[in-house]
């Protein structure tokens, strides 16, 4: 590339050395914050690490004992199950809603669509922990905003404990999560809609296709690649949900909303500070998400070919 230019400067680094020099800050930071911790998490997961060991600085090797412990722990298996239910529910609802809203804000003849489009990013900007706490006020049994709406509009006369019922608590956590992550999915779908050739719709209309048929036979097939990307991205992030659980239920009622991240956090950072077990459980989560990431990279690679 640069070979075409004959000029050389006396005090200039050759391109290869300059490339290394320019990457030093990134490489150092990534090594310290990403590469080493990923290795070290694996190391910790094979050792006994709790408060006493942290104080002494010696971590005895225990082999697979930490992994054995979490797979024998009913709570960990429950957390995995809850995470799966949470992810399946939130990602499905999110994608259906996102497609509908992306189509809605694409309506150029409807002036309210422009307001929606303007406000789309608001949930994205709200700190998840603040959003979660606000939703817990909305859900509140005694003072909650949702019950107030139901009373005022006359839809119901008895208070509902939205986040306090074990059967529905997981979904009460999922709604705020969907609320927060919806903007991202809508944006990607809306951008993809702009890329669809309008002549396709006109040709279909001439052939007598109704709006529903145009959606099923033109829009949806053309959106499929981006839907798959959203599916993989959102699934892997939903697996690691944390903030909403902390803000709304702290794992409760009972253990109804224990999810994988919450399990690792509680094991590692609350008494008896079993960091080895926390690391092992986090590693299991990372491996599940890593498999999803491989699928994602494969998809992107196929798309750009």
């Amino acid at each position, binding site marked *: 590339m640069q070979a075409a230019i004959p*000029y050389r400067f006396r005090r200039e680094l050759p391109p290869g050395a300059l490339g290394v020099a320019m990457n030093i800050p990134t490489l150092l930071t990534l090594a310290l914050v*990403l590469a080493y911790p*990923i290795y070290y998490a694996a190391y910790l997961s094979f050792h006994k690490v709790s408060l006493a060991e942290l104080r002494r600085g010696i971590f005895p090797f225990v082999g697979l004992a930490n992994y054995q412990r979490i797979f024998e722990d009913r709570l960990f298996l429950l957390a995995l199950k809850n995470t799966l239910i949470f992810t399946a529910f939130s990602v499905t609802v999110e994608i259906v809603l996102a497609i509908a809203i992306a189509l809605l804000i694409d309506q150029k*003849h409807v002036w309210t669509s422009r307001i929606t489009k303007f406000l789309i990013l*608001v949930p994205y900007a709200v700190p998840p922990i*603040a959003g979660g706490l*606000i939703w817990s006020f909305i859900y509140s049994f005694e*003072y909650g905003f949702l019950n107030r709406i139901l*009373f005022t509009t006359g839809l119901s006369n008895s208070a509902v404990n939205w986040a306090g019922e074990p059967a529905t608590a997981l979904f009460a956590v999922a709604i705020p999560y969907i609320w927060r992550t919806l903007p991202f999915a809508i944006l990607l779908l809306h951008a993809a809609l702009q890329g669809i050739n309008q002549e396709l719709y006109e040709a279909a209309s001439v052939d007598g296709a109704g709006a529903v048929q145009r959606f099923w036979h033109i829009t949806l097939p053309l959106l499929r690649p981006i839907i798959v990307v959203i599916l993989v991205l959102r699934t892997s992030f939903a697996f690691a949900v944390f903030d909403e659980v902390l803000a709304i239920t702290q794992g409760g009622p009972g253990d109804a909303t224990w999810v994988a*991240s919450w399990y690792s956090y509680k094991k590692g950072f609350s008494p008896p500070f079993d960091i080895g077990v926390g690391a092992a459980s986090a590693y299991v989560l990372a491996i599940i998400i890593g498999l999803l990431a491989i699928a994602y990279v494969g998809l992107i690679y196929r798309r750009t070919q």
Partner: protein
Amino acid sequence: MRPSRWTRVALHLANLAVIGFFLLPLIAVTFAALQSEKSLHADTRGLWPPEWTLDNFRVILSGGAQRGKVFEQATYLPDNIKKFHYALINSTVISVSVTLLTLIFASLTAHTVVRLRARWVMWLLGANVFARFVPVIVLMIPLYVVFRQMGMLNSVWGVIIAETGFLLPYGILILVPYFATIPQELDDAARIDGCSRFSAFLRVTLPLSTPGLASYGAIVFVIAWNDLLIPLILNNRAEFMTLPVMIASLVGDVFAFFNLTMAICLIALAPTVILVLLLRRFVVQGLSAGAVKG
């Protein structure tokens, strides 16, 4: 094609429902933040408080020194409220530093990816795509142990380093496609005029990439400001808390009633919501670039 009248009415209603869903938490937080605990208790069914007050903000922003009418009789305020200004300053310092550091580091790397195309640089890019998927909790357990051994727990710097590392891959993925749109010929022209490779980067690529840098800067600022898990695990002393950690510390505190916690949430969400609405176009561009290309 102009939709029929009834279709348009239906679409207006659909928009109303979506706007209502998106704004519901903002309405709820404002509702609770602008009244006293007493009036929240007095009327638990209505949507319009009998009286509005700014006392919640007064007590928070003064760190509990000015109590106003609402907190006159309060014998106990959560300890962390008294250190609210620390959280506000820490959040600002951390988010601004993380934004600047990641912008510098990521643009240096993105430039080498676009102009150098050496095998190891492409490998680095691939590693970044993977790194985006690593859940924070996996990194935080080992980082806690390492930072503890290095004495970096409870410091602003520890959080800045951890967040910079965590957000860097995302930035590289956003900036690479942007830098790739800048024609190589401009670089070449600058070199003929006597620029070294590095100063061509400083004087040509960077100024032309302002929109890309703004997109990424806004997104990083929002993520850093909003992040909970990293500062929650690294910093537990009130002097080093960020706003999200302070909010998390009030969850389950029986003395922090909704009027107070909602006022804090409103203060915490205002900067990012305003920033995102102001820089809407850039944020939209950055979010789609970081997800699709890379």
